[in-house]
């Protein structure tokens, strides 16, 4: 299995069935992540980032479901695995850190026990061994005095500490892929940077691949080698992080990059307003015909409003989904 990518998604479609009709909440999603690679998924709220992540770990629930496409993990298709087999992957081979670090820990259980439970559950360890391993895991996420901290309850820890515990839980079983869905949105900026740094270092040490999800293109490009930009349920551009900043191809990505404050720029100094993309993201039940970005795109032409563009491979690697891309 050396040649196969760690995870490979091909033409994935996620259906939203509200009982009246079935719409594609996401479609044509394709990407691959190699072992130890860092990959980012960026886009505005509601574009389908979280549901894509849930599809990867087999946790789409009514009214959402996989409507087509293939997900391969180490070359094996996993989208049709039984619930029990998918559960063996979750937390063990593919782990996930949540958007809400404040509520992701059980309030009535000491944090050490919650870490230890992972070893009992996935590695068949005894509680004695697992408790020892939990102290080590807590030490590895740089929690001071871990042998005392394991007895603490979540409410005794700060937000940053709790997110460290979450990382310890997620990485406990040595997963091959860590999905981080907005892991730091609820934390303040300095803590945010620390947590991201910690996560990146731990994963690099252990060869764990990261799928990082965020609306913050700057943050993601900083952490990830490659970035995919999502808009209204489709990936519109996928590039190396450096390329995407230097020469964004898709008009939407161009808008995103232009709206980022740059260090020392007039906008960052507050002299001019950041350039925002005019218009709003279309509702899921009301996606426009053709290219879904066309109502907001300054370069749209006739064909953009009727036929959805296919992906164009770029010479420098990656692809873009636009008729008139740069």
């Amino acid at each position, binding site marked *: 299995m050396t040649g196969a990518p760690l995870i490979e998604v091909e033409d994935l479609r996620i259906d939203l069935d509200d009982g009246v009709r079935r719409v594609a909440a996401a479609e044509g999603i394709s990407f691959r992540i190699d072992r130890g690679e860092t990959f980012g998924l960026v886009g505005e709220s509601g574009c389908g980032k979280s549901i894509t992540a849930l599809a990867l*770990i087999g*946790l789409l629930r009514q009214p959402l479901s996989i409507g087509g496409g293939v997900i391969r993990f180490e070359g094996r298709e996993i989208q049709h695995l039984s619930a029990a087999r998918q*559960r*063996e*992957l*979750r*937390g*063990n081979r593919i*782990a*996930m850190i*949540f958007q*809400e670090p*404040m*509520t*992701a*820990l*059980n*309030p*009535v*259980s000491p944090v050490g026990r919650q870490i230890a*439970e*992972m070893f009992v*559950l*996935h590695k068949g360890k005894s509680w004695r061994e697992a408790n020892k391993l939990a102290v080590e895991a807590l030490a590895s996420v740089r929690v001071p005095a871990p042998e005392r901290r394991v007895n603490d309850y979540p*409410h005794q820890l700060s937000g940053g500490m709790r997110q460290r515990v*979450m990382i310890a*839980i*997620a990485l406990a079983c040595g997963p091959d892929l860590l999905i981080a869905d907005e892991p730091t949105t609820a934390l303040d900026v300095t803590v945010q940077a620390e947590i991201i740094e910690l996560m990146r270092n731990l994963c690099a040490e252990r060869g764990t691949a990261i799928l990082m999800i965020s609306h913050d293109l700057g943050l993601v490009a900083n952490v990830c080698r490659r970035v995919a930009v999502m808009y209204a349920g489709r990936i519109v551009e996928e590039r190396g992080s450096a390329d995407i900043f230097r020469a964004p191809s898709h008009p939407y990505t161009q808008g995103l990059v232009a709206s980022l404050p740059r260090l020392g720029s007039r906008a960052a100094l507050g002299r001019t307003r950041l350039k925002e993309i005019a218009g709003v993201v279309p509702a899921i039940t009301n996606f426009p015909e053709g290219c879904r970005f066309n109502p907001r795109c300054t370069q749209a032409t006739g064909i953009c409003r009727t036929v959805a563009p296919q992906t164009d491979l770029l010479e420098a690697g990656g692809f873009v989904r636009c008729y008139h891309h740069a």
Partner: protein
Amino acid sequence: MKLRANLIIGGALFALAILVGLLAPWLAHTDPVLDANLMNAEEPPSWTWWFGTDDQGRDIYSRVVYGARVSLTVGIVSQLINSVIGVALGLSAGYWGGWWDDFVNGLTNLMLAIPSLIFALAIMAVLGPGLTSLLIALGLTNWSFTCRIARASALSLRSQGYVQAATVLGYGDLRIMITQLLPNMLGPIVVIGTLGMGSAVLSEAALSFLGLGVRPPFPSWGSMLSDAREQITTAPWLSVFPGLAIFLTVLGLNLLGDGLRDILDPQSRSRRT
């Protein structure tokens, strides 16, 4: 934290009842069954016979002390059965939803529609009198409130971040229910259990009063009341003391339940933090 009066008084009454039951052989003055002596029949309360004697000359004090064993065994064991049934049904129904939830809901509504004492009576009629029948009859008929609360808690807890996180981490359903949901709903379940114990003590008395409880001559508070009803005017002490025992035990359990609610209620808990 301020300890509340109802918690202290209720806890003390319940603890007293348990102690009396446990220490009955040492506290009792005579054997509650064998020490009948017609020479002392129907003695009123005195320094020798604290609670008086019955028409067979048995010491009422000793019989009340031993009666605590039956009442508390029935109260505690039958309520434990009820709690286990109610939690298992309600928790799984709330967490899984779907047809299982509909089924459990229907069953709960059915149980609520039939007064539990009537239902217990019917079961006793089939099983015949005796301690085991009492435990079964009362243990199977009073779980609907626990079930409701467990279901409602599971419904609201299952969307909590930590329950979803557990799913993402590969926890199975059973493990989620036991480690994530159950500990977080224990407060209200314990409160209902305590109150339920009180009503089980009452139901035992009622069923024994009707002659369906523990077989005479072994004393239970309910059967003592039943035996005493013909002499209620001539020898009122025969009914007063077992009645008082029932009253104080049930009062204690109700106060304890109220007091526990004050400290275990998730709402009052979150208000404090």
